[in-house]
């Protein structure tokens, strides 16, 4: 009896204390403003940044009956703050709901700020905030981030999170833009051996006089598009060294980077390459990587040699010279030879570009290379960042052909024209 009344008391008291103390992080979903993207720009005053919030309106597009049909799908707020942590409260002077980073998808930094040596001080706040996920993508915009966010108005995917998600995912599949999450930025910066690639994007159009000769050797803004579509372009990468932007590479170079990189899977690279049978035309090919690259380090005095074997799976989708190589073994051999040579040349050129201009590799080369060292200290003493520009890099491409289009045979030109 006594025991029971004691138990009752204990249960009652714990219930009371729990109900008084609980609900620490409690916040209802509809009381939060969901930030999809954060834009960061330089401000005149040193130590300050301009923070732009891209806030999604949940009521648009998610439900038929919810109303809010006349509301815009997004809200953009730009303000000056010390960093993007404290700016949350400042933003609440304009935005009614609590600013939440739960849905934060992208971090957009203007090229101007990214090239600033102090940029690293600002970006590292992202590691402090609990809500910012390391999977957020890192975008560098040619113009001010605020302008980029303002001008980026997708016509069909009006909800901002959907547009950014799909845009980035597809861009990464085609290899036009790099896989650039925040985690990678911190990892590469801290390991201090490779260069980091961020997505390069813009809403500005760069007018070029000359006619466009390639489909992918371009940077964001250089693609000539007509029609009534959104004016944002996502192609190419911004190259970061030690937390500071040092240059940009084009879409084609980004694709090469992705092919040289084992940690990064591109599935669907459609590109064109010179037709070995007729100088006037180009062959459309689809490149994918079915097998992993192999890396080898041959340490020599002063100048180590690096060998990279890149197995490629190529499907050739066009035959503008109408040579019907698919049925001809000799021609296939010839095709393979010329493709290998052309691709190897591209790769080697890119590698020497990174060695001479960027002074570092953009394809996480240090990761497979670590295996070649017995201890971590050895690797650190080797100082990859310093050694790489002087290394002799040899890229061997081996090609395996897939199918040559759905219909491999083409009619003979002479017969058709007869």
């Amino acid at each position: 009896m006594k025991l029971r009344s004691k138990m009752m008391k204990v249960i009652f008291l714990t219930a009371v204390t729990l109900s008084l103390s609980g609900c620490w992080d409690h916040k209802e979903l509809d009381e939060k403003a969901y930030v999809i993207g954060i834009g960061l720009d330089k401000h005149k005053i040193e130590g300050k940044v301009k923070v732009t919030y891209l806030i999604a309106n949940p009521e648009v597009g998610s439900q038929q009956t919810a109303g809010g049909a006349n509301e815009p799908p997004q809200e953009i707020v730009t303000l000056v703050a010390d960093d993007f942590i404290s700016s949350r409260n400042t933003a609440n002077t304009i935005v009614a709901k609590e600013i939440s980073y739960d849905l934060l998808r992208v971090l957009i930094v203007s090229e101007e700020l990214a090239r600033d040596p102090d940029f690293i001080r600002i970006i590292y706040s992202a590691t402090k905030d609990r809500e910012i996920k390391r999977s957020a993508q890192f975008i560098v915009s040619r113009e001010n981030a605020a302008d980029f966010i303002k001008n980026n108005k997708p016509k069909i995917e009006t909800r901002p999170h959907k547009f950014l998600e799909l845009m980035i995912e597809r861009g990464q599949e085609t290899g036009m833009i790099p896989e650039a999450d925040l985690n990678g930025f911190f990892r590469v910066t801290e390991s201090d051996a490779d260069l980091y690639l961020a997505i390069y994007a813009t809403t500005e159009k760069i007018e070029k006089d000359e006619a466009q000769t390639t489909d992918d050797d371009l940077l964001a803004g250089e693609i000539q598009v007509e029609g009534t579509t959104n004016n944002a372009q996502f192609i190419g990468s911004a190259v970061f060294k030690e937390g500071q932007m040092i240059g940009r590479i084009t879409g084609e170079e980004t694709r090469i980077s992705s092919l040289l990189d084992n940690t990064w899977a591109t599935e669907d690279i459609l590109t064109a390459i010179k037709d070995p049978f007729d100088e006037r035309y180009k062959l459309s090919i689809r490149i994918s990587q079915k097998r992993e690259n192999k890396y080898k380090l041959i340490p020599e005095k002063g100048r180590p040699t690096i060998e990279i074997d890149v197995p490629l799976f190529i499907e050739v989708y066009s035959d503008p010279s109408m040579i019907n190589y698919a049925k001809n073994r000799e021609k296939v051999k010839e095709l393979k030879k010329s493709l290998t040579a052309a691709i190897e040349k591209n790769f080697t050129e890119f590698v020497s570009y990174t060695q001479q201009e960027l002074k570092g590799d953009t394809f996480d080369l240090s990761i497979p290379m670590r295996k070649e060292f017995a201890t971590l200290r050895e690797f650190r003493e080797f100082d990859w960042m310093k050694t790489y520009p002087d290394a002799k890099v040899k890229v061997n491409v081996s090609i395996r052909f897939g199918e040559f289009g759905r219909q491999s045979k083409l009619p003979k030109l002479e017969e058709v024209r007869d």
Partner: protein
Amino acid sequence: MLKEMLTLLKKQQKQASLSVDKLEGEQTSLKEKEFSRNLQGNLSILKHLYSIPDNKDIKLRELYLEGFNRQAALLFISTITDVKSIEENILKPLTENTSSDKKVKDIVAIQMVHEITLYKDAVKDINKGNALLILDGEPKAYIMDCPDFQSRAIEKPESEILIKGPKEAFNEKAVANISLLRKKIRNENLIVEAVEVSQRSHNDVFVLYIRGLANEKLIDNIKERLGSLDVNSIQNLSLLEEYIEERNYSLFPSILSTERPDRAASFLEDGYIVLLMDNSPDSLVLPATFWAFFHSPEDHYLRFFYGNFTRALRMTALFITIFTSAIYVAITTYHAEMIPPDLLLAIAASREKVPFPAVIEILIMELAFELIREAGLRVPSPIGPTIGIVGALILGQAAVEANIISPIVIIVVALGGLSSFAVSDLSLNFAVRLTRFLFILSAAMMGIYGMTAVFVGGLFYMVSIKSFGVPYLAPMSPNYKSSKDTIFRRLTKNETLRPGFLKTTDLQKKTTGE
């Protein structure tokens, strides 16, 4: 206040136990007497005991037996005896008999005839529907077996419905129920013992087990428990259940109740003990583990894959019932970052105009659902469908349109509610539905962390409780030798062992087929 209530309760219990010692108004002293040689004396005592002529259905027939040259009397309760049998098999042979050296036993055409000397026994047997014959000059009485209680016929089961399998169900007549079991187990070792459990109403409980299989200690334990009850009346098994179970305040049931004789029979064959009682259209199976409540006989009647598919479905349904609402509450209030963005925005949009926090919303709908369920159960059948329409349509639709409830909550609660019906056992169903509220509250207070804590605590509890000495989750945890019929079943031919936790005399129930 609680303390006062408890002391009051205890006092009541004390009073109750006192009154049982002497059953007032039961004329116990009269009953202890023996029959005398004087017929009129005997009759006057019986008249007094049965309040003749106030008691209208007690029939006393006095007659003169020519063959014996004696006065005699026949006493029976006409509503519970087979009157036709009395007429043809007792009265007729007795009156037509002319020889004086024949015994009563030899004259009447009745199955069983006992001779008794105590009024106590006479009363007991008459109350069971037997007829009593007294002859003048004999200090004893004859009990003739001819009971005929009214009851319904054997019908289809109503709460444990199967598509495939036998369609007989227990009814309120224990004799019929035992007959149904005997039909399935044709073995002389199937023992039917009767234990009287109440003093005034004299309710019998039939303890069924297979001698040579069931654990003797367990049988003794149960008989002892039944015999030690000190109650005036226990009408049926549902009431008895509470008297003999070990943990009355536990959320989980520890005795299985089934209305299917095929199920009861298969439990008997595995060495379990089955209790039957008049007035109960079901049987109690003990000891019962969690799996007994979770299983349905159809799992074995269906083919291997079909049966296991239903098991998987039922397990999923069980977890859906317990967790969906709680997970919704936890995620929307604490872990919003876990939800995919499209869904998160959709939930946020639908909640925009809802005035309550997610917990209250869920609790309102859960309560509404339970109300519809309870009301639908109690409502007279002609207006039953109306309740469904009013409940589902008006409550759900209108609540959403009035912005009291967000549509996603309707989905969540309806899913949980629907899944709860897949847990067919009534007791486990209640247990699951109640724990659901526990999880909702813990989720509202401490999110997924709170839910995990309660779940772990609940598991500890489930592992610790026992039903008649058998761990609740056996044979899974603790592990016992058995056919491993837990979440999934094995091929019937591979289920060769009786459950080890029952400590049956014979563990093997079939050869391994090798």
